[in-house]
């Protein structure tokens, strides 16, 4: 997820292209709809749709999509760092320098009708099955540590350790190790397991000084006092260079006039560096501004998943399903 740092303009163009992290067979977006103050019509691969600001604010525009005002008024498109106001003419999204991502899994589907029937049937059969039986097997050991996620990146100054809060009172021990070093970089014993998170200035200092030594790889260990078992999560610290680039980018986004662009831009800057927890927070801000944007909801879901916010992923999934007019599956 990391990108090389570049000029603010370049970053801004990339924002809309990369933050989508389009699923298989989907082309990357290059622009986003903002204000719609006219009777606008969107033409995409699935035909013509009448669009409104309520339902389409924050909708990504993909290569080949076009939007036109059929009445007096205007609409605005966020194009990279720019905000273009378009009146009485068609805006067509162009590929520019961004190439569509190749399809990852080409799947042969049966006829759409049978496929729909199959899906509905499977859902009902699964429900009937679950009514009588429960899986008596394992998928695998579940994660007890929510943040940092495995192989994610943390920002030392804002690092908070989060774990699945225990329902029964019990003490836990947390420690951060560096590869090859026996004594831990930081250790906290007797932490209340029911709390679920720990934000400590000692922890920030310890990992910041470790980073200054030139290393970024670390391992968080969580031990339950009542059990012999422990949980390890490898993660890395944001390097000083990336930290600097991140701060620069955040400054750029701060200057952006459009609030939605500010939030999405910040989210991109975080997500592209593996700072999913922070990215998730920014997407939540963006969703407050454009709650019906299918694209933003999907983006937020992807990031929340990386941040191990499973409940929120489910909520967003429900939002996606209940979006007025539905969310088109743009597999073009």
């Amino acid at each position: 997820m990391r990108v090389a740092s570049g000029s603010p303009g370049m970053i801004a163009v990339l924002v809309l292209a990369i933050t989508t992290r389009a699923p298989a067979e989907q082309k990357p977006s290059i622009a986003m709809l903002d204000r719609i103050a006219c009777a606008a019509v969107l033409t995409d691969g699935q035909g013509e749709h009448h669009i409104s600001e309520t339902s389409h604010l924050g909708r990504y525009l993909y290569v080949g999509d076009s939007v036109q005002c059929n009445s007096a008024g205007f609409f605005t498109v966020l194009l990279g760092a720019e905000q273009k106001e378009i009146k009485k003419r068609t805006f067509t999204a162009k590929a520019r320098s961004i190439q569509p991502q190749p399809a990852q899994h080409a799947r042969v589907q049966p006829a759409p009708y049978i496929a729909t029937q199959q899906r509905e049937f499977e859902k009902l059969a699964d429900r009937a099955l679950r009514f009588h039986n429960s899986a008596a097997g394992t998928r695998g050991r579940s994660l007890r540590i929510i943040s940092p996620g495995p192989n994610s990146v943390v920002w030392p100054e804002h690092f908070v350790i989060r774990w699945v809060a225990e329902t029964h009172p019990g003490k836990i021990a947390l420690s951060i190790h560096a590869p090859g070093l026996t004594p831990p970089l930081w250790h906290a014993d007797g932490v209340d397991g029911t709390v679920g998170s720990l934000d400590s200035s000692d922890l920030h200092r310890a990992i910041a000084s470790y980073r200054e030594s030139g290393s970024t790889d670390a391992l968080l260990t969580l031990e339950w006092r009542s059990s012999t078992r422990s949980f390890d999560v490898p993660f890395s610290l944001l390097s000083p260079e990336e930290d600097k680039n991140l701060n620069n980018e955040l400054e750029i986004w701060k200057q952006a006039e459009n609030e939605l662009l500010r939030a999405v831009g910040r989210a991109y800057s975080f997500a592209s560096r593996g700072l999913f927890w922070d990215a998730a927070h920014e997407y939540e801000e963006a969703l407050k501004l454009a709650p019906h944007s299918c694209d933003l909801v999907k983006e937020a879901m992807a990031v929340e998943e990386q941040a191990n916010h499973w409940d929120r992923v489910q909520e967003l999934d429900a939002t996606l399903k209940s979006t007025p007019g539905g969310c088109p599956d743009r597999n073009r």
Partner: protein
Amino acid sequence: MVSKKQKTQRRSYDSAVPLKVQRARLRGIKRDFLIGVILTIALITGKDLFEKTRYGGYLEDFARDWLEYRLAINRDGRPTKIVVVDISNFSPVAKHPYTSRTMLRHLIEAVSTRPLRSIGLDVNFSTENDEPFFVPDEDPTFFNYCLKKKKEINGLLFVGISNSVVRGPEKALGSIKYLPLAAYIDHPNSEGFGASAEMDESIEVPHISDKGGILYHSYPSLAAALANQQKPKESWLAKWIELTHLVPYPVQETATDSFNIKHSRFVVDFSRIDDLETGAILAPAALKDFESLKTDNRLGDNVNVLIGRGEDADDSDRFAVPGHTKHYPGVFLHACALYTLLAKENRLSLMTTWGRRWFDAVVSFLIFFPILMLRWYYNSRKDEVAAHRLNKILTWSAIVFLFVVGVWMVNRTRIFWEDFPLVMVALLLHSRLEHDAETVAPGLVRRLRSAWHAIVLPRHTPGNE
């Protein structure tokens, strides 16, 4: 020396009673036989209905707990030939919990250096949504390895599937070529009361084919697949018993739900679950330590290995077991199911609904019929047979006998008599009601006869004669 009083008493026994009295007694015997039959049918029907109520369910729970408890305390020390390899030490590998296929492959490789009988993975490989595999990058490679390994282990290597059975045999495990590896790992939910003593032997599930038609496919359970036992050749007696629905075998119950999913289930002997848990091997967390498994004595010859999460199993993978107080990880339930199916002497039989009805009728008949026979035999004696006292003695003898044989010795009979509390209550009720009916019946019959005569026959007046 015989006293005068005793002589008088003996004479009274020996002296014949008038023919009229004898006929009246015979009528009474016939009437009480009818009452006995009607009461038996009524109580069996009542028991059937009561079994379906909440309180009937509680009584069956109690019976299941008792029977499994008796099995557990009478368990023998024979080797189970089953070893559970606990993979609790395997670390999580991604945000979606899944077990590392690499670790599993190395584990299978390490344990299979011994001449094992079978290997079962209580790991859920079911596909989800529209994805062809649960872990697309790793599953096909792992399944190919398992197919290759399966040939080396008597063809007895199976991996777990759960909800993907609804997708049909071609998609259940991603591809039809991996289907020979698939074994069903679900556990029946308790029907709203206590823990289930049964597990699936197989499940038949409908699915929509790519051409749109509904097809059915049957999947074996993990235990049944590993046991790989064919239905034994039955003697004429066993066939007759099965024909009369008394003790069907090996599948005890076939439940079909509203969606036409057919569960063929059998009763599991959970008596060795603690032994299996104690004897489980905790797989090392690091690959380099897998060497220790090659020399582990518990992995002896001809042993069945079940791989799953034990110590660190999630709450969703822990189940209550009848006759035991704690919840056990699913892998131990599969191990018990396998233990039950592996040897003929481990199997438990369950009476079907009709089997229970026959049994209840026979027990009831064995109590009231001998009394009627005694009454008929002593019909000509002056003193009547003490039917009520005999009824009480026989009822209580039957209850004690049935409890000792049916419950106390369940480890020997191997018949899982789930409705014994209800049968015992029914027997006591039968005794009581029969007594009441015999007291009330003569008067009732007399009144009914008078009423009938009053309606049908002309009024009998002296002038008409």
